[in-house]
């Protein structure tokens, strides 16, 4: 039995890897565009999840870090003519620095105050990019950001740029998985569950909250840095509050505090948006309804643990439990599948 299971697991694992690798050869270019945006959103949703999901802070302004990363990349490449590969890390670090700036004043805040403050910072960062015309091009944005060369191979176009996204997304999963299963990740989760107890055990709350913000912002910056050469053009309209809310919705729909959650959320959200494209603007109504429905039916998200601080289902009052039969069993088929692929 064990052996068959092992074989199954390996088949699943390497099958998925092969599939991901060969995807551009199989599917059409228009689908690859969707896949690319899914991969891009996955990194940023995962980054947001590592802030909101693991240390239980309420960052609603992830778009700001996304913005910082993208503009840093665009400026480094276009103004300073630095290669994409070299500029990638500074973009992330720049965003992490912005993350630190945001994290410092939010240390004492919680709940909606923190949400509002992060939103405020996000908008201010966007507005700086919008108004600092000499550096960021203002409303004109930055044009002509070239896709990088990879050992002489051009990576422009969705089916080629996809590999950059794929590798980065995998790298993100790899790093985050390792971090959350270490002392750092456990400290984050301890803060999420009970900050007083965490303090009594010697976890420096402030330090780890800042670290957490910087980690999330770093990956958000990387996601932004990847976006710039992919779109070849950026302006501040990519990083509005609504974009931040979209990303947040993806994380919530998938399930905060799990690695697989944001992935599932992004896929569902993007498939919904793309699948309902024929309905025109109606598809956004679909998204809005999906968000509300998720909060009603499964506030911990598709793959989130029902036994988590984030679920809040312990407090759903008995009077309105009509829909509780719809709650999925905890590990859930989707989650099981994803877990078996990941590990």
């Amino acid at each position, binding site marked *: 039995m064990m052996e068959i299971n092992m074989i199954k697991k390996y088949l699943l694992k390497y099958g998925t890897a092969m599939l991901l690798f060969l995807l551009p050869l199989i599917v059409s270019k228009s689908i690859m565009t969707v896949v690319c945006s899914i991969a891009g959103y996955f990194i940023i949703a995962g980054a947001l999840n590592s802030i909101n999901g693991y240390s239980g802070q309420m960052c609603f302004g992830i778009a700001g870090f996304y913005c910082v990363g993208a503009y840093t990349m665009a400026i480094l490449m276009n103004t300073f003519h630095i290669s994409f590969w070299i500029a990638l890390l500074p973009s992330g670090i720049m965003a992490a620095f912005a993350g630190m700036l945001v994290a410092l004043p939010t240390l004492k805040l919680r709940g909606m105050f923190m949400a509002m403050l992060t939103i405020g910072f996000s908008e201010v960062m966007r507005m700086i990019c919008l108004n600092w015309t000499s550096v960021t091009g203002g409303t004109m944005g930055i044009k002509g950001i070239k896709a990088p060369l990879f050992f002489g191979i051009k990576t422009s176009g969705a089916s080629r740029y996809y590999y950059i996204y794929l590798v980065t997304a995998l790298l993100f999963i790899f*790093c985050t998985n*390792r*971090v959350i*299963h*270490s*002392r*750092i*990740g*456990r*400290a984050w*989760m*301890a803060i999420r*569950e*009970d900050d*007083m*107890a*965490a*303090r*009594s*055990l*010697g*976890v*420096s*709350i402030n330090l780890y909250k800042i*670290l957490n913000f910087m*980690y999330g912002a770093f990956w958000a910056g990387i996601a932004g840095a990847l976006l710039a050469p992919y779109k070849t053009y950026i302006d501040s309209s990519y990083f509005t509050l609504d974009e931040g809310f979209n990303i947040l919705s993806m994380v919530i729909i998938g399930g905060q505090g799990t690695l697989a959650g944001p992935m599932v959320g992004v896929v569902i959200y993007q498939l919904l948006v793309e699948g309902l494209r024929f309905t025109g603007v109606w598809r956004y109504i679909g998204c809005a309804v999906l968000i509300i429905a998720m909060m009603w039916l499964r506030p911990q998200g598709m793959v989130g*643990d029902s*036994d*988590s*601080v984030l679920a809040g289902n312990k407090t759903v009052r008995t009077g309105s439990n009509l829909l509780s039969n719809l709650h999925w069993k905890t590990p859930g088929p989707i989650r099981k599948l994803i877990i078996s692929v990941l590990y």
Partner: protein
Amino acid sequence: MDTKILLEARSATKKFGGLTAVNAVDMQINKGDIFGIIGPNGAGKTTFFNMCTGFYTLDKGNIFLEGQDITNQPSDVIAHKGIARTFQNIKLFKYMTVLDNISIGSHINTKTSIIDAVFHTDTYKKDEEYIKETGMEILHQVGLEKYSDSLAGNLPYGVQRKVEIARALAVKPKILLLDEPAAGMNPIETDSLMSFIKMLNSMGYTIALIEHDMKFVMNSCNRIIVLNFGEKIFEGTPEEVKNSVLVQEAYFGKGIAVSRGLSA
């Protein structure tokens, strides 16, 4: 300064607005003590613990750990210096396993950084091994091995108390502060807790505890202070406390009616 004194409070005072919750309390806990802090409800016992562990700032006075001033330091720094505590209303990480709870207790004894975690360096491997070993060792000591993988929040009350103590032990503290460890336990659980605390003491841990269960305190502690309305009204051995008129008055009132009735 006598090095035998582990934790010392000198005229520690805490005010909440007009109310003086703890007023000029002196306390000396020696190495190897099981030290009891008792008093009626609202006497300021938990406040006093919170002052010792940095959750409240002192308005006056000082706290010393092994002669080193730790007054008003942040609670995580105090934990680093060697004071671990439990809480009156259990503060476990409810949605984590027992072993994970204890792993977080090992936080200050490890030093993995993000870089270590990502690249699985030697530091990381050593730390993880240490965490696992200490975790299992402590679970073995407290006899909770069978619960190691269950969610802390799902355990019975008495076990949760023990897990909280086990988590505090993982900090490798010099002194352990237990806030009402026997609250809400039935007599059997209380008895097992008492022998557990005595066992910890015999292993070399210094323990200070707040407790309402007099039998528990009298049978486990070797020294006791009594607080009432934020002031220390008595200090001594369990025997002395039992026989103190002051303490009886604090708990039962002055008993004018009773004494009159008796003398008549």
